[in-house]
């Protein structure tokens, strides 16, 4: 990129080892995934050899009600968590963008959930907090004299997953938006204050527009990570009841590692990657070239 070393010998070979590892683990297997999606293969039936079956896997998926439900769930989990998470993160960023004693500690505590592994998030919420028999849920319900909600039944499971996703990802979005607020030019806000803009007006007419690029980045990260949520679903609901709380990630796993339908699982992966790329492109077409700098 920079021409400082023009006269030197080439150094491009330095990229080779790392590139090789990335290719071997991510790119080549994905090509295999595409190939497998046209194959009928059950690993646990060694008597039946894998055989080419054209578009049968895709045909099966798109004639299966469960699959549409799973796609719908993926949209809900991703979309709702992202919108709620961004809104919550924005409010928190506004609140925590000030100086007070212990602000660093307060922020660090706030973002802790982001650093907790998904299985632990799932376990803690499912048992200690939300369990309708022995959890905090039970204790509080008893205190207020109401019946404890069972958060993981067919009516609530999907929304409970959404809550856990919001809880896990809001801190990360918060950090991005907070650093946006902190990089905001003081003069603009001072000028607004002098002109008599109210708090709300400052937020709507100055902070929001100036934060736009940060919202884009936060939205991008959130979108990508929420589309691949897996561990939280795996440990709390196993996608159930039925497929009530399964998203595409989890459905790939279940089809591949419980039903051992390799071809069908591959087809779901292909749909999922296509969907990811499509969404990323639709939502962030205007993102432009990330390496272009002033």
């Amino acid at each position, binding site marked *: 990129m920079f021409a400082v070393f023009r006269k030197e010998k080439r150094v491009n070979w330095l990229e080779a080892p*790392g590139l090789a590892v990335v290719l071997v683990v991510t790119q080549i297997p994905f090509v295999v995934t595409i190939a497998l999606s046209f194959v009928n293969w059950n690993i646990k039936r060694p008597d039946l050899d894998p055989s080419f079956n054209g578009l049968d896997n895709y045909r099966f998926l798109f004639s299966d009600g469960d699959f549409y439900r799973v796609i719908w769930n993926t949209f809900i989990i991703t979309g709702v968590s992202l919108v709620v998470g961004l809104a919550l993160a924005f409010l928190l960023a506004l609140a925590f963008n000030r100086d007070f004693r212990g602000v660093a500690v307060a922020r660090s505590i706030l973002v*802790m959930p982001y650093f907790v592994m998904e299985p632990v998030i799932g376990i803690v919420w499912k048992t200690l907090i939300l369990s309708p028999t022995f959890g905090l849920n039970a204790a509080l319900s008893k205190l207020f004299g109401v019946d404890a909600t069972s958060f993981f039944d067919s009516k609530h499971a999907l929304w409970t997953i959404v809550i856990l996703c919001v809880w896990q990802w809001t801190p990360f979005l918060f950090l991005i938006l907070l650093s946006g607020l902190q990089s905001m030019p003081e003069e603009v806000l001072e000028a607004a204050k002098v002109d008599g803009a109210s708090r709300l007006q400052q937020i709507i007419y100055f902070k929001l527009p100036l934060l736009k690029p940060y919202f884009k980045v936060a939205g991008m990260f959130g979108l990508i990570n929420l589309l691949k949520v897996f561990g939280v679903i795996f440990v709390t609901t196993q996608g159930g009841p039925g497929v009530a709380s399964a998203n595409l990630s989890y459905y790939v796993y279940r089809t591949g590692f419980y039903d051992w339908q390799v071809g069908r699982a591959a087809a779901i992966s292909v749909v999922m990657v296509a969907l990811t790329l499509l969404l990323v492109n639709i939502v962030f077409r205007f993102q432009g070239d990330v390496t272009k700098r002033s």
Partner: protein
Amino acid sequence: MRVSRSRRLRPLIGAGLLALAVVYAFPIFYMVLSSFKNERDVAPPRLAFVPTLDNYREVINPDLVQHLTNSIVITLCAVALTALLGVPIAYVIVYGRLRKPTSRYNWYVTTTLLPAVAVIMPLYVIVTKAGLLDSRALMVLLYTATGVPLLVWMCVTYMMDVPVSIIEAARIDGCDRWQAFRYVIFPAVRGGVASALMLVFVVTWNEFLFATAYTFTQAGTLPVFMNRYMTQQGLFWGKMSAAATIAILIPVILGFFAQKSLIKGLLTGAVKE
């Protein structure tokens, strides 16, 4: 008037926000608290209790120690390999002579976006055939491959921030490529690389999909242990909380101190100013 009022309110606002943060992270504190309770005080929850270390005493057994060791060994090896392979890539993208460095950079960024489920089936087949299932070496390889693109993403932006003029000055003073890297570029990006590696560490430590798909007992990491604990001994919440506290300790402490610099590397490249 307004000024003095807001000044008087300031400590109150601070205390309020601190309380808000604690409420938000409450499930974590509650879990840690439960880990020091007797089982009968955990469920149903009891406010008054005599703290005990019994849960930890019971839960720190060879099984947990093995998973903890796996987590440490696999994560450290993956982070080291990521640094070894990823930093040169960033260097080549910024200072090398690739024909299209920008599109190569974008390729790495896109790779971090791809969901891991896109490759779990073929990798499972290949890995089973190669006899690598449930081995530490496999997990190190997988995590290096997912760590490298993330590191490249963050590292390139740090290297682009190094002023060209000081590198040119070093060249005029007779530094060769290696010396210019060793004495000029590396010191300038060291902090950034460290925070990028910290993020790789946290992501690797917490990774669950590959771990649960490809490991059982030999190379299982803590996320796998926690999941199994939940299904096998899910009724003992006190012990479960103790195990979970041990599992999240390292990344949470890292995050506590490094959250600010983690964000910087991801942002400098992505937000045009």
